[in-house]
């Protein structure tokens, strides 16, 4: 946990300096069945050198959020739709009418003063892989099988740095050494299939960090790896963060991973943010029924439960999300208002940096959070 502490220090150093500030991000897709609202009004921010964890079930819009920021969605459209209550409908209409694009993102994503959603395509390409790098879930398929890893690393360098091929190769070898690839001078000419899954993810990390980005987006970087390799990769990412001062957005569905690396956590549910808080708050004082559900489904070492608690039901379809709070059909606390109104993120009374989108009164929530935590960890609940 030392690295997390270091990250926090960095974050407090430049507390008012936000690296990435996302506001009201929406990404819709056109499909044969209708408009899928994959991201529907998401806001969050990342400070310099900080680690943000984005958690949620599969299909809740975690990855699409970050892909939208980098313009990596399939066939993205460029339509300027002003903020306001009619934004969602205007986007749906623009998509329906279009034959040229199948995805559309609106909102703001400020990165060092530029709105990534409106910058030119060539500027965005400069940022991609330069100031913002991304690594992906499956290292087995994320590297091109017909090019040596050296070629792929050098490609990344040459796209963003003004160096000769020879220098680029040197940089690539350095980067491989950095991420702990033994005999990097020789392995640089090997092909992806000659590496194991963990080694390939190391290569991906080396490739992402070779241009010294300010922000690294890691989309489930450990999901496809076995547990021991997972730990190594997380450790490596922590170390790289300390050395380079890179901010990280870690997309994951693994609350264990988040506890280990994140400074702040965004919990997403059905294309929206359910709760956003410093990491300790999430584990000690979760304020959203969905977060309670997630924590309840986490296996614990300390307690001996027969069965893990699960959240009843399925995540809603993003084609036709339920009216009101998206979580209300699965929520045991839902009341009338939840079925009518869509809750916005509001700060909790106890901690202004802790925001959540739920209509329950805070007293009830504190009591419930206490009860949920006590059910699997009596000690922590007693202390909190």
């Amino acid at each position, binding site marked *: 946990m030392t690295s997390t502490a270091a990250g926090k220090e960095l974050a407090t150093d430049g507390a008012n300096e936000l690296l990435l500030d996302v506001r009201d991000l929406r990404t819709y897709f056109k499909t044969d069945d209708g408009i899928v609202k994959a991201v529907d009004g998401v806001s969050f921010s990342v400070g310099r050198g900080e680690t943000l964890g984005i958690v949620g079930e599969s299909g809740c819009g975690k990855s699409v959020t970050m892909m939208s920021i980098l313009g*990596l969605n399939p066939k993205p459209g460029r339509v300027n739709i002003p903020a306001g209550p009619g934004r969602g409908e205007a986007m749906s209409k623009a998509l329906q009418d279009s034959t040229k694009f199948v995805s559309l993102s609106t909102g703001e994503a400020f990165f060092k003063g530029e709105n990534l959603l409106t910058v030119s395509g060539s500027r965005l390409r*400069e940022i*991609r892989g330069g100031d913002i790098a991304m690594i*992906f879930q499956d290292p087995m398929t*994320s*590297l*091109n*099988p*017909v090019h040596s890893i050296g070629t792929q690393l050098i490609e990344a360098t040459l796209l963003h740095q003004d160096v000769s091929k020879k220098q680029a190769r040197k940089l690539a070898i350095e980067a491989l050494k950095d991420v702990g690839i033994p005999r990097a001078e020789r392995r640089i000419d090997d092909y992806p299939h000659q590496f194991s899954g963990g080694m390939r993810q190391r290569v991906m990390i080396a*490739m992402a960090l070779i241009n010294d980005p300010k922000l690294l987006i890691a989309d489930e970087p450990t999901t496809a790896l076995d547990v021991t390799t997972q730990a190594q990769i997380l450790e490596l990412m922590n170390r790289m963060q300390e050395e380079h001062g890179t901010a990280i957005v870690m997309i994951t569905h693994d609350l264990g991973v988040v506890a280990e690396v994140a400074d702040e956590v965004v919990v997403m549910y059905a294309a929206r943010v359910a709760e956003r808080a410093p990491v300790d708050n999430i584990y000690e004082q979760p304020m959203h029924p969905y977060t309670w559900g997630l924590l309840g489904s986490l296996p614990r070492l300390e307690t001996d439960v027969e069965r893990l608690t699960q959240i009843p039901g399925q995540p809603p379809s993003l084609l036709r999300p339920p009216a009101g709070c998206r979580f209300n059909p699965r929520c045991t606390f839902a009341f009338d208002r939840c079925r009518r109104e869509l809750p916005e993120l509001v700060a909790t009374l106890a901690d202004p940096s802790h925001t959540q989108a739920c209509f329950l009164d805070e007293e009830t929530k504190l009591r419930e959070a206490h009860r949920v935590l006590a059910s699997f960890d009596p000690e922590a609940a007693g202390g909190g």
Partner: protein
Amino acid sequence: MVLFIAVTMVTYVIFFVIPANPAAMAAGKSASAADIARAEKRLGLDKPVPIQYEKFLQRLVINRSLGYSFTNRRDVNEMVLAAAPVTASLVFGGVILWMLMALPIGILSALRPRSLLDRSAMVFVLIGISAPVIWIGLVLQYFIGFKWALTPNSGYCDFINPPAGATCGGPVDWFTHLILPWFTFAILFAAIYVRMIRSNVMDTLGEDYVRTARAKGAPETQVMQKHVLRNALLPVVTMLGMDIGIALGGAIFTEYIFGLPGLGRLAIQSLEAFDLPTIMGVVVFSTLAIIVFNVIVDVLYAGIDPRIRLE
């Protein structure tokens, strides 16, 4: 090697299963029983089939000879070697033509699925695949060769060294005489390849490493060239090698329509005459062509796909 023996042996067996008497045909229309027996002995058809096959192999391996035709006693080696350049001209020209059509159409329609170009390409594919080669050939011949008289209608001219008494020769004549056959031959394959290239490129565009390349900040042209096409065209190389090998055995319909004296026409003529050595000649040649092109594909593949490179 195993393939070679299997193919020639099966050809032999089929030949003798067919209820016909090649000796009778070789001996002439009004031959007596004694004449036929004599012809049988002369052609070696009186011996048991396995012995004949053994003799065929012996001749092939030791003398490198395919023997002499039953019907006109010409050297089969010569006949095959005379026919091979015709078929080769047709096939290689056709390959170039169909790849020139299939590559751009396939790639562009993969990049813009459901666009007007993509839809017209799919109509072309449907027509190309379902239209019989003979029909395409005859239509082209009628309109371009006959009605508008833009190109010669049939026949073949040697590229170099036309034989004495030939009516035409040289690269220009060679080219004009082959234009229609090339198109006729290429349309079916072009259609198949458009569809194959389109689906390969579309599949590859969805690969994770293409997303990685974009996330690196690579411009779209570089993503296409370096990451998409290289991977998408790997299977096309395999198919191309095999198709060339197969086609060299004779593009029967095309050669027939345009009166090209290639291997396909030789095969038909010899089959009609039950001319075993010539049939075997064509079979041996096309089998070798298929084997050779498969080897070429394997070698080429090891060069372009690191995953199967020999350790």
